[in-house]
């Protein structure tokens, strides 16, 4: 694909995982965009961080969960997984709590990366 057709697209996940379908639907969109070889990143802010927490077992609430989907992002070349440091601290979370590797940035650093995107997709 020619370089000029590649857009920088950042998905921003701000909601806790299973209370709404935003993160489920948003992940579908991430995978579709990634399959078109776009420069896709995901930024987790606020309660969105809870989507990344280890050992989620959704069997008793009878929904499929998305740990498996998040786990295969790397296979779709979605390797830019960013987490907001302030949101981690507010929730008492550390990188050890997450089941996929993430890069931790301050809100100001994330804001700078947001400003460099062609498109921001809120989830």
């Amino acid at each position, binding site marked *: 694909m020619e370089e000029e057709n590649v857009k920088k697209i950042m998905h921003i996940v*701000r909601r806790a995982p299973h209370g709404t379908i935003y993160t489920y639907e948003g992940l579908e969109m991430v995978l579709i965009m990634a399959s078109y070889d776009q420069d896709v990143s995901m930024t987790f802010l*606020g309660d969105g961080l809870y989507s990344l927490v280890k050992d989620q077992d959704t069997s008793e609430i009878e929904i499929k969960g998305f740990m498996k989907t998040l786990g295969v992002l790397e296979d779709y070349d979605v390797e830019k997984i960013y987490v907001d440091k302030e949101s981690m601290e507010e929730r008492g979370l550390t990188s050890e709590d997450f089941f996929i590797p993430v890069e931790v940035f301050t*809100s*100001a650093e994330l*804001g700078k990366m*947001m*400003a460099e*995107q062609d498109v921001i997709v*809120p989830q």
Partner: protein
Amino acid sequence: MLHTINKSPFQSDSLSTCLRCVQGGEPILLIEDAVYAAANRGKFAEQVQGQMASNPIYALSGDLKARGVSSLIDGVTVIDYEGFVELVEQHQVNSWL
């Protein structure tokens, strides 16, 4: 980047999260229930006022009127839909939903 917020700051962390991430000079537009953040009283007024040192803050006229929000923080620019469109023409948009 134009940052739009549509939730009341009392209901959602959209405003506070946006204010943490926003870069100097980027405009912030308050629409729908977020216009309560433009009121010159309440616990968010001081923070919004302070933010105006680095970012222009706009609020949508129809949404202010619909909610009877008339005493605004000094410096908030009230715009109509035409002004909204102009901002969108000039910037990429980051919607804090």
